């Protein structure tokens, strides 16, 4: 059978209200401490990179590079933000968009995935059924988005960031998050309609 859709319940719990600020502050005088940030968030960043890129090696590279870039930029980290994840996701997003081909391969693979048979959906929501059937069309719609739109949409849809966190990650105002997502929704809807 094709890979099952992930259940929300299987997703890792968000990290405890850890204070990344303290770690980053300490790393200013003791750079070694920055490894603590890696220990906390590397799995999560890797998971996101692996979802967006088709090959694991590239996801490995993106994850390693994300933390190196973050380390170099740590003096400019906004120490009023206790959760460093949006910052790390923002760096990862930029790196991912530098791997356009691996990203497109991912979306093509997603589109090729055969729709599951209706019988196997008995215990699933109607919405999930619809999404599975629409998978090829949705993948095509994703591929057709601009990279800024795709970055934002996937931070919300695949990384579960809140609008506020996504705004921090991409360095854009929350108002821009709302308007960009709204525009993206419309684009996807049109794309799906044209596939129908």
């Amino acid at each position, binding site marked *: 059978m094709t890979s099952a859709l992930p259940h929300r319940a299987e997703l890792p719990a968000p990290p405890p209200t850890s204070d990344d600020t303290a770690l980053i502050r300490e790393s200013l005088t003791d750079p070694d401490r920055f490894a*603590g940030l890696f220990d906390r968030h590397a799995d999560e960043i890797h998971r996101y990179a692996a979802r967006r890129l088709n090959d694991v090696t590239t996801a490995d590279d993106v994850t390693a590079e994300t933390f190196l870039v973050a380390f170099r930029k740590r003096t400019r980290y906004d120490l009023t933000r206790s959760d460093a994840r949006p910052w790390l996701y923002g760096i990862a997003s930029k790196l991912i968009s530098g791997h356009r081909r691996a990203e497109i391969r991912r979306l093509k693979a997603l589109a090729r995935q055969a729709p599951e048979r209706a019988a196997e959906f008995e215990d699933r929501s109607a919405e999930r059924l619809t999404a599975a059937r629409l998978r090829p069309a949705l993948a095509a719609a994703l591929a057709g988005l601009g990279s800024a739109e795709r970055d934002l949409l996937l931070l919300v849809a695949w990384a579960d960031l809140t609008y506020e966190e996504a705004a921090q990650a991409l360095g854009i105002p929350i108002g821009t998050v709302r308007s960009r997502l709204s525009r993206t929704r419309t684009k996807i809807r049109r794309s799906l309609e044209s596939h129908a």
Partner: protein
Amino acid sequence: MNHDEIQLVAEIRPDAPPYEQEAKAAARRGLVAAARPKTVKAIWRRPYSMVLAGALAVAVGATAVTLARTPGAGPSGKAEEVVVTMPRIVNLSASEVLDRAAKAASRTDLAPRDDQFIKVESQTMYGSFGGGAVNGETGATSEETRYLYRTKRVIWQSADGTRDGALTIEYLKPKAYPGWPIPEQAYEDTGTAELPLPICGGKIPDYMRTDYASLKNLPSDADGMRAHLYTGDRGGGSKDGAAFTAAGDMLRETYMPPAQRAALFKAVGTIPGVGVIETAEDAAGRKGIGVGRAGLDGVRQDLIFDPKTYELLGERGIVVDEKAAKSPVGSLVASTAQLSVTVADEAPAFKDKNGTTSGCG
């Protein structure tokens, strides 16, 4: 049919393969390696330096101070005596000295074109702090180490901040951090490293830029320059500490035209907590006027100015609080010298260790 498109996209989220232990360990090692001494300079340049309340004005009894240039230090190689007349007051304030200093700032006048590079050669000695970190997996704390690492650096930076620069670091023999044994790792960095300095998207806010093109457009009056030092969020809990750090950043491995230099000398003297040392020695043995400020780390950082032209000769760090600094009072824990500042047409195109010239995020 009224499905939310975002929810639909969330529903087709692909599975993620696990992060292989081997790849993860390699990434962590790479990060730890990057955090090693080569980057320790960040400690010295940290933007979050803390305030130490109270002025450090130096009592000066003499009416004149003779500042001698060490033979071999000047371009001519000849000893040169310079007399700077000091005001006849007991407590010499930094702003008074700097006001006089500003009148003298005029010698070198480089005028690089936008497509050229500022090339700066310097010698540095900074503290390297290691260990004391808690291992995320075992919970063990590693042994704390300290030593002074020394280098010769040559840096090429784009005059208008738009072109990739370059940096070579030649590692010199380390020295002991006063009160601490030299750890083995101090000898690991040897030879010469060649590093590209890519321009990454130009995301630095204007007020934090230190390229020649932006420095030459800064105010040429002290009030305007002081306002600049306090502009924007420069980090840290102390605006005064951040302003002093900003002044150092504008002078270190850069070239600032005489008019702005003069304004900056005046402005830095008005920062609360700043004091003057009439004779401070840089890493090349040249003596100049030290303008310094103590941090809560127990170390006073001095910017050392040429007594004649008031260009930056170098910097030094001296322990003023034994307990905070974990080193005896008077210990020299940082010392640098800017040996030359020139204009170059090109910067070497070094590759980073991945074989690419981009290291951008």
